[in-house]
């Protein structure tokens, strides 16, 4: 198919619309889920089941005045929320939703997602610094040290999988797992018996990388007001929120592609985009479930978990897989 301006525009609009719609309705799902777990109704007034709550929230956020605190660094204060949302949308470019639904299949797809995810740290730093708020600075230092520490085991785990599949193209990574649940990377194979452990490590790291509870030290309400976005109101806050949920969708998509066979059916029947969506929403549900049922960790516990447990295990797994790949 030849590339036209129309195709490009459709792809861009679809990516932004998908990210925004997900952000809006995942907030609803999160609040309803939280309500259910805490034995209260959650938002249920606007529309059936409260489904009109996200548009109401959106209108409220967009019509609110944009306040910039007096001492803030205006330029950085304005740039940070944009920087939180833009990389997340960029990452949608290379995510294959099915064999045909992919905007641009890149040979370095895995790298591209991690490269743009690393911009998220920059946005948190600039937000905390730019708002010139003690809580903000403390929270951004925390959040970034957390992001850096959890990037390491995450990337080591990804290297293990890239080594097995021999490609960094997300589409080819899925194709290597085609044909049923026994081919998925989640299931231990002869050359990588520790695959479920890798899955667990990657899952924990994606929770930490998206700043979700129990690892949401960057916005620990009980200690830091609202963390790095303390000073943000109206759509500045809205963009941070949307960026967070877009990042969750990307995290879930990556887990699905790397471990759960992408758009393949567990039994090898009717592969298609529906399986992909089913898998990512199940993963997102588990993210929400974990957020509302686990208490927040401490910053030392968090960093120790990464440097003393996850990194050694993932390094051992990497060496073991490399050795076994040579043998078998």
């Amino acid at each position: 198919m030849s590339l036209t301006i129309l195709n490009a525009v459709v792809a861009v609009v679809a990516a932004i619309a998908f990210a925004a719609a997900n952000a809006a309705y995942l907030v609803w799902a999160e609040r309803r889920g939280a309500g259910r777990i805490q034995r209260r109704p959650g938002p249920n007034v606007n529309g059936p089941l409260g489904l009109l709550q996200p548009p109401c929230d959106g209108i409220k956020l967009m019509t609110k005045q944009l306040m910039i605190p007096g001492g803030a660094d205006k330029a950085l204060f304005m740039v940070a929320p944009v920087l939180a949302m833009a990389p997340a949308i960029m990452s949608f470019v290379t995510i294959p939703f099915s064999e045909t639904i992919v905007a641009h299949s890149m040979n370095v797809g895995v790298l591209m997602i991690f490269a743009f995810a690393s911009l998220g740290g920059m946005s948190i730093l600039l937000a905390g610094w730019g708002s010139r708020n003690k809580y903000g600075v403390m929270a951004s230092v925390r959040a970034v040290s957390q992001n850096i520490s959890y990037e390491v085991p995450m990337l080591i785990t990804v290297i293990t999988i890239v080594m097995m599949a021999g490609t960094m193209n997300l589409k080819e990574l899925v194709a290597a797992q085609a044909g049923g649940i026994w081919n998925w990377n989640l299931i231990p194979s002869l050359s990588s018996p520790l695959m479920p452990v890798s899955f667990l490590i990657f899952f924990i790291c994606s929770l930490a990388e998206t700043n979700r509870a129990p690892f949401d030290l960057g916005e620990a309400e009980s200690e830091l007001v609202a963390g790095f976005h303390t000073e943000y109101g109206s759509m500045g806050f809205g963009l941070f929120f949307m960026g967070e949920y877009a990042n969750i969708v990307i995290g879930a998509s990556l887990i699905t592609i790397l471990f759960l066979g992408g758009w393949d059916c567990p039994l090898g029947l009717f592969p298609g985009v529906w399986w992909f969506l089913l898998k990512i929403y199940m993963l997102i549900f588990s993210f929400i479930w974990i957020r509302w049922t686990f208490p927040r960790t401490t910053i030392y516990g968090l960093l120790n978990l990464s440097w003393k447990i996850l990194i050694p295990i993932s390094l051992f797994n990497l060496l073991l897989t490399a050795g076994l790949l040579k043998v078998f």
Partner: protein
Amino acid sequence: MNIMDQVNSLLPGFLTADGFAGVADEAAGIVFLIMLATTIIGGIIACNSKRLVRAVAGLALCFVGVAAIYYYLNSPFVAMMQMLIYVGAVCITIAFAIMLAAPEDKVKPGPSGPLSGPLGLITAGLATIGMIGLAVKTVFPVMPKINMGSVQLIGVKLLTNYSMVFELVSIVLLIAILGSLVIARHGRSK
């Protein structure tokens, strides 16, 4: 004839595939100029801003521009590495260090050292003339596109033709890790 072709047949000329190819050639130059401008503006912000954190943000912008140029030159792997290492690691580490060391704004000290003032101007002028001379004199051959940025090929080359470079880089990293450990341990009893 699939649905996209049908849609294309209904569009005005410049929006169709052939028209777009023509526009794309024109647009490519503009895109390149935007990347160049991003890099230069980022560099200027990095050098001239009074607030250190702004300077780091400018540096990050500069690196993003450089990464975009790498991508433009058909080298996606290097572009992504540029983003991952320079923006994601180097800039964040610098910003981190600034936040931990100097929570208040530090105004940049004024010009100092023997190369400030006229001598510096002469040095900069000579360097600029030299660079312009090199850029004008060098013949830039148009290289054919080798592949779609295959990571495998880069890996093979790194472990065969350029294994020495690879080893030296890993030694540099090892020394950096040891050095940071020594600095971090300095003055601690346990």
